[in-house]
């Protein structure tokens, strides 16, 4: 399950940023992917839909608190675990 979350998030980031999924790992910094704050918010929204969770972040905060792909994965895993 938790591997699935990581893979699905990487796939979403890859499609939003037009990047090879294989080139993205937990340690990849979002800044390296040239993802801006609005794209990041879009990705967060897609993740919310996929996992039926609500991430309480506005666009500016998302950029401040999420630096790497792993940060997003950990946040989503926690929210999914809390929901269950």
């Amino acid at each position, binding site marked *: 399950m938790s591997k699935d979350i990581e893979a699905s998030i990487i796939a979403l980031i890859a499609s939003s940023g037009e990047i090879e999924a294989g080139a993205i790992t937990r340690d990849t910094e979002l800044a390296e992917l040239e993802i801006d704050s*609005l794209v990041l*918010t879009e990705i967060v929204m897609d993740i919310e*839909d996929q996992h039926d969770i609500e991430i309480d972040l506005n666009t500016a905060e998302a950029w401040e608190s999420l630096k790497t792909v792993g940060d997003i994965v950990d946040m989503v895993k926690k929210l999914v675990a809390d929901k269950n």
Partner: protein
Amino acid sequence: MNQRRVVITGMGGICALGGNSDDIWTSMKEGRDGCRPLEMETRDLKVTTGCGIVGYPEDDGIDKRQSLTMSGISRISVIAARQAMKQAGLEAGEFNPQRSGAVVGVGIFGTDAVDQSYVDIFLEKKKRAHIFTVPRVMPSGPSGHVSIAMGLQGPVFGVTSACASGNHAFISAIDQIRLGRADVMLAGGAELALVYGPLKAWESLRVLARSVCRPFSADRDGLVLGDGAAIAVLESYEHAKARGANILAEIIGVGMSGDASDIVNPTVEGPAAAVRNCLADAGISADQVDYINAHGTATQTNDQTETRVIREVFGSAADTVSVSSTKSMHGHCLGASSAIELIACVNAVREGVIPPTINYTTPDPLCDLDVTPNVAREKKVDIAISNAFAFGGTNAVIAVRKI
């Protein structure tokens, strides 16, 4: 008053008559009817026809990420703006960005984005609207996107006055040049009316034609809505001359007025004042005008009132001036209408051809003007004016001269 002269050096457009200003003009000369069955999910709409866009480019050249933030009104504005810049021979690096701007008129807003939100939320029960709904919907989106696409860093804003938005946009842009704030302004209008929400609203107003748009014809029964955009490159005469640009026509005068009367029923005095103000600004008399591109919506009220306006301002010259409503061909594209109609006026003075009022069957004694029925006419045209008399009683008229 000694003021800077303003000329037109490029025009672009996309509507039911074609995907660029040359095709649109050719269609106008041929009297082509852009009205077709609606190509959309019409749900419970009673209206079945409209003047939908043709010739949308397979590759619109708009960056994918940028496109996500755009309503269709912004996309067609950028397409028209690119064409206009190309015709004007203006490329990035060849003009001063800080002395260049954009004003795009929009009658409604990003209708496609609003409709999509309602479908998402109410029909598909999604939790939220698309992330870019706000920038897609805003009526200043087209002007912002044109500035982004073309690198225009001077005055950039949207204007709105319902069906006169295009002319008000031209006038606002001309003012920037006349006041010395800019040397180059891209200006025009854009609209998507063939969207469920606006169609449903227009249906309620009961001014839509049953099937055909017949301005000034006794059997006219209303307007046909259309989608489209047109953008012109306006420059100070000195700027255009200095860079050796091909000048298409000069805008010699503009006039505005407000009816201050009724939100939907026009007066004669208001529109007449706008025409007079335009003639005065141009320093010409009514009998010098060879062609009037009428507002000509094909509602009973508009066409009768507009005839009285022309008779009042033109006096005996009203018997000889050529009039036509090109809305009979491209439909009523609301905020884009007068922008598309500038394509008619500019080409009329360049080529000496009056585009026709098509679908005309029966003379109406209350519209006793030479409305150029059904077939274009060759005629020497030095000066043309373009009327736009909108709901709200917001009137704007522009005069162009051959150069």
